[in-house]
């Protein structure tokens, strides 16, 4: 009798263990699937500036510039900040990896500036093609893209 009870107990423990293991496996698998499905994963976000910009930028400068706190380059040219829509994957990647904040946190900073009348938000462009066009043609412009093509109107910033 005691043996039977022991076997029963063990098998219940086993079933519990198996189902717990199963749930854990499913959870880990789903996380891995989500991560692999995440479209931002394979995307790069490189910072580009108009060729007129000669300042040496550090990665820390970016958060200052994209939160619209710095308005001019060292030669006095106005900084024109261009951004992609909040839902754009390159924008998300840029915010998280280059600025270290979430897109809507950055937006909250812009709202604060706009609504207090102390400044303005960056100019929104609708596509990466428009981003390249605007950064190429606007003196003092800064933006970001996923793939850089060698050219003489804008350049990539290497933070290494």
């Amino acid at each position: 009798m005691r043996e039977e009870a022991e076997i029963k107990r063990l098998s219940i423990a086993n079933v519990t263990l198996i189902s717990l293991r199963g749930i854990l496996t499913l959870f880990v698998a789903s996380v891995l699937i989500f991560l692999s499905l995440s479209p931002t994963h394979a995307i790069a976000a490189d910072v580009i500036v108009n060729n007129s910009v000669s300042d040496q930028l550090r990665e820390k400068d970016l958060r200052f510039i994209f939160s619209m706190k710095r308005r001019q380059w060292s030669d006095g040219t106005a900084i024109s900040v261009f951004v992609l829509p909040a839902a754009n994957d390159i924008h998300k990647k840029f915010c998280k990896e280059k600025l270290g904040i979430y897109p809507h946190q950055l937006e909250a900073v812009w709202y604060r500036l706009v609504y207090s009348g102390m400044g303005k938000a960056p100019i929104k462009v609708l596509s990466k093609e428009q981003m390249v066009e605007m950064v190429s043609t606007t003196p003092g412009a800064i933006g970001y893209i996923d793939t850089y093509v060698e050219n003489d109107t804008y350049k990539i910033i290497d933070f290494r």
Partner: protein
Amino acid sequence: MLKMTRIKLLIFVSALLCVPFVNANMTDALRWGAFVSQGMAYSSDNHLYGDSDDGMSTELDEFGAWGSYAFNPSISFTGQVSMRDLGALENGSASVDYAFGSYLFLQNMDQVAGVRIGRIRSAFGLYNEIRDAPHTRSSIIMPQSIYNDRLRKTLFSSDGIEVYGSWQIDFNQLSYQFFYGESHIDNDEIDEISTVDIGGGLSDVDLATVGGDPEGDETFIARVIYEIDAGTWRFGLTYSRPKYHYEDKTGVAVIGGVSFPLKDGSIRRRAIISSIEYNHLDWSVSAEYIRDTRRTDGIFVGFDSGNSHGEGYYLQVIHRPNERLDIITRYDVSHQDRTDRSSPLNNTRDFTIGAGYRPKHNWLIRSELHLVQGMSWLSTVDNVGVNSHEHWNAFLLQVSYHW
């Protein structure tokens, strides 16, 4: 039924129709934005934004549109009109929230300084300027210890002149605002802010029934904010000193059901707020502490002057598990009178949990639960003749859209 007037609806629809055209024409010089929201409130007891006691009030909607035009990099004009229905506090009529011209007289790599003239949003605490639009504030009900909805009009903007600017020091920034001018006030707010200690306390004072003429008077506001590491840490200090005067016309206040004669008088308020905010990845923590003094001279015949020393604070934590969702937890405490920290008429403790969800970038659905003890920040005009309860809960839901 949604409580939206025909005019509101007309503006709402025409704004919707205008969107594709205006967006296409938005330039760097011309900026605009708009928002519309509809909320509902349920409370277990007491009325919050309309008849919410054991029922659903939909007197919680707003529409606002702002625009800004830069004539050149130094001169610009900014303004906002809005219509709000906030229970009996606001009835949905259109008003100019702010409208000012600004001139930047200094702009270089490290510094910006300017002056603005007109109706200016008041620099009061960290969030007064972003309290009016659903997508910019952290919750449907702002922490009432600081951003009291009963005094929304007088706190929100004032007419006058302001010198403002910011100064970059490495990755830190010091920004400052100094305002001098005249504040706004109406009968309801004079009712809320006036202090006279007769039995039931100030919550029972009802000036709204008399045809007096309250007006804003000399007002000074100063605020300094220091931000470390591009906003990781934000420290703020505010000093606000508005004054109001009351010109009596019909001379009766109803206090606890008894009529008292009125006379001309004035009210002064002095408030100091210290603020702190910390942002790290998907977490934001903020806390603000206010101390204020309100002094009523005249107004109530037989009560020459009355002083009230208030205090309030809150601690708020926002977590954003992903870019569509935010979860907010807050503990908010208000003491209308520091010498009385127990009576529910003078004190309120509000524990809030809430969440905001953005199904699309421009849409926001927000809901929150308030577990409240006390009635000090409940609107008097919403609760006239209501059997008040010290312990009450409220649930709010709001859907908003912004352009």
